[in-house]
């Protein structure tokens, strides 16, 4: 029973995915969706969730939405333009290297969010990470600085702050 309650956030997520993927809300879809989502929730709760209380906090979702808006409309656009310019300009101005970028978020999900955000913006790719010292090794197409804290300022400060708010 405890597990069932714990799995509610996951079940809701799963149900949403099911309905969106099916694209219809007839009785059949809803019934099967509920069954499937409960099953998925029960099976995966212990693997996916660390702290179910966090998952049912609406404030975190608002931060997530704010973050994604900012991320998609500002960081992504800017970095896309930058890399496309480099790819298309006749004389490629490349200045690549792997730099240390420290991060501050504590949870696994926050770490993953920051890393994925860094990788998803063209121009920076997380090559490796050091969990103990909390350092990402980022391949940067245009190394402006080799100083870790300055690099964090340039690459991942925004992601890191939001990640702390969303997941910590």
């Amino acid at each position, binding site marked *: 029973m405890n597990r069932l309650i714990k799995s509610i956030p996951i079940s809701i997520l799963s149900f949403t*995915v099911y*309905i*969106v*993927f*099916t*694209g*219809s809300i007839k009785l059949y879809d809803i019934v099967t969706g509920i069954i499937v989502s409960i099953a998925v929730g029960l099976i995966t709760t212990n693997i996916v969730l660390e702290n179910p209380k966090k998952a049912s906090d609406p404030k975190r979702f608002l931060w997530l939405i704010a973050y994604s808006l900012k991320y998609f409309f500002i960081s*992504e656009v800017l970095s*896309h333009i930058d*890399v*496309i310019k*480099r*790819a*298309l300009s006749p004389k*490629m101005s*490349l*200045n*690549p*290297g*792997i*730099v*240390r970028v420290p991060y501050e978020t504590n949870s696994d999900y926050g770490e993953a969010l920051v*890393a*994925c*955000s860094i*990788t*998803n*913006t*063209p*121009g*920076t*790719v*997380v*090559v*490796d990470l*050091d969990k103990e010292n909390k350092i990402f*090794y980022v*391949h940067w*197409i245009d*190394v402006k600085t*080799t100083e870790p804290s300055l690099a964090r300022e340039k690459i991942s400060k925004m992601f890191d702050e939001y990640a702390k708010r969303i997941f910590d």
Partner: protein
Amino acid sequence: MYVNETVVYIGEILVAIGVFCDLAASIGMLRFPNFYVRLHAATVGTIGGAFVPLIGIALIALGAEWLGTYRFFLAGASIITAIIIIILAPVGSHVLARATHKARLVKVEPKVVDHLEEDIKKKEGDKNA
């Protein structure tokens, strides 16, 4: 009034952006000198070239009444595909880059700096000492 049209036009703009990113990414793929730099082109290809147009397609499908009732299926599946891509693509690149670096398959050349290499060497030195 012109809800359908508006939605479709927005979707078309997104798809057009996607195609442009796609072309740029493929040219970058060809021109960039080594694997690590190509990773960035690939990111352009997946986010700009796949995620954005998929959202656009979902919008087009919502506005495209001639597709019948299954257009919601199209829209929903496109959105799920887009979500899957944005979740999984960075991990793919990251894992590939990490494996390449670990197995020393590609030299990080040209480079300004390689902190990872330095740290690995330092660790090995600690172990040996």
